[in-house]
């Protein structure tokens, strides 16, 4: 098996076309690098289990429940204070703080989950060594494909036909 090929495009539509052609030929697209999310690509490469939402829901509701429990414990058990004859367990107003707190904790853990799944933060990555990779965040769209054959010429030609400006071999 040859080294994976990295093809450079100047628009996302050509990249998606090339990816479909390569996939139809039995090659395996490994990843794509784009300056903005392209729906066809995010669908193709979406992780099988996206943990962000379950994690956010779990920690958000958990934090809200914990905050409610704290309010209940502090105002019913630990420090009961009769304010104008209101019930010690004033549940309607006890809902406000847990909501705010739950949303905050969900946001924080969601960010952590995002970093965790993406392997961020990191200060360097081998990809950054590739010439032109700095344009991925600006105006270039890169597709990384593994050829199914030992000789990658067929894949290279198919990528070039699809509009690749440059096709390079990636050696890890």
């Amino acid at each position, binding site marked *: 098996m040859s080294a994976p090929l990295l093809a450079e*495009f*100047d*628009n996302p539509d050509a990249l998606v076309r090339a990816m479909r052609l390569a996939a139809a030929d039995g090659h395996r697209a490994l*990843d794509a*690098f*784009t*300056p*903005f*999310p*392209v729906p066809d*690509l*995010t*669908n*193709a*490469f*979406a*992780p099988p289990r*996206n943990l*962000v*939402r379950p994690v*956010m829901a779990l920690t*958000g509701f958990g934090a809200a429940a914990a905050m409610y429990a*704290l*309010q209940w414990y*502090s*105002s019913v058990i630990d*420090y009961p*204070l009769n*304010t104008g004859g*209101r019930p010690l367990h*004033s549940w309607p*107003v*006890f809902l*406000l*703080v847990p*909501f*705010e*707190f739950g*949303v*905050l904790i*969900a*946001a*924080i853990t*969601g*960010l952590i*989950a*995002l*970093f965790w*799944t*993406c392997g*961020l*933060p*990191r*200060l360097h*990555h081998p990809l950054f060594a590739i010439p032109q990779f*700095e344009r*991925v*965040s*600006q*105006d270039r769209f890169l597709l990384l494909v593994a050829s199914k054959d030992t000789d990658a010429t067929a894949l290279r030609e198919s990528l070039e036909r699809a509009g690749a400006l440059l096709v390079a071999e990636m050696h890890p």
Partner: protein
Amino acid sequence: MSGHAQPHRWIARERLGYGEICAAVADPIQRRGPGRAWVIAFLGVLPLVLATVIAIGAVLTVGIGLSGVNTTVVWGFSIANYVWWIGIGNAGTLISSMLLLTRQHWRASINRFAEAMTLFAAAIAGIFPIIHLGRPLYSYWLAPYPNTMDLWPQWRSALVWDFWAILSYLLFSLIFWFTGLLPDLATMRDRAQSRFGRRLYGALALGWRGSARHWAVYETFHKTMAALAVPLVCSVHSIVGLDFAASLMPGWQESIFPPYFVVGAMYSGFAMVVVLAIIIRWGLNLQAVITPAHFDAMAKVMLFASIVMTFSYATEWFMGWYGGDHADRAVIAYFFTGDYRWLYYCLLFCNCLVPQALWFARVRLNLWALAIISIVINLGMWLERILIVWNTLSHGHAVSLWRTYHVSFYDVVILIAPLGLFAFGFLVLARIFPIVSIHEVSQLAHDEGAARGGTA
């Protein structure tokens, strides 16, 4: 101010390649100096920043007596300013999140600075309750923590709700803003020429490399945050409304207050976004991505909010009369005939009458008219907040307590100077971070077909 036809609705150029978008947003920061207007503005706001710091220092050392509050009108400028600033912040989040959820792609060019506006406005708003506490050194008592006094916060107190609302809102806005900024920080890193720039943006971009796998997770997170932001914003301003509505005062104890505050916040916030958009569009030459269509859309939101506000005022009057309570009726009468009546007429003029001009497309497309109307709305909304405080407190249940508020010098400083702090924050931010979302505008250019054929 160009009313003539443009090639794309949200992009005012025939062709706008991805590279051009990056250059248009990043180059003013990385390749060009600040420019004369920026320097003048920066020097202009510095005294105001200083004045804010001095005013806060003075009220922390001397005490709340510096303000015009008295034993009857115990709330004053600080509370009105707090409500006003948090309202400004609200629209930033609403623009970002609600328009993201409803797939209004035009938000791409304005959401970034709307979010930054939220961040600064919420931070400034958070100052006011603390400096109004009277004993600000005990402000940390609002947080529940194990302490030797064996005390807990009073969870039924509106002040505790405010604490959590502002804290959550501020940190949430920071995360939301940073998430949107992350891919743009990578762009800045990759375009940086100086060693310092590469290090600064390189560290802040956290190694973002635009992988399709990352984008998939990123979009999930961003959309989920937007979905959380809408109820959060509504809850934050509802809690601000509850500060009043949870009391027993005539004119405050109204169930309409929370929603009426949320719409009011959206109203003044959109007006502020319009003002900022006009300034930023001019200052950073962003005519290509902030188009007349953007202003048209925002003006329509303001017009809608104006109508809702007018309806809310009318409901307030009607319910005061229909409820039949003497104190409520007396306060409503006091609105129109009392000590602050001229301010109340001013409020109605600013919030209900002037924005009706936005029915006309010619007004919506005239940036001068739009800027003036937006400033008038912000003025009107501040008057509304101060009058909510003053009218009720000056005309409560106990007739023997009726007094009016007398504005002090400190009040005027604490009203005006934070505007300079806000501008200062924006000016600094505009020199460091992209003030328009590069990746979202690129996507918009792609969807609108303006980036067709790629770039050389």
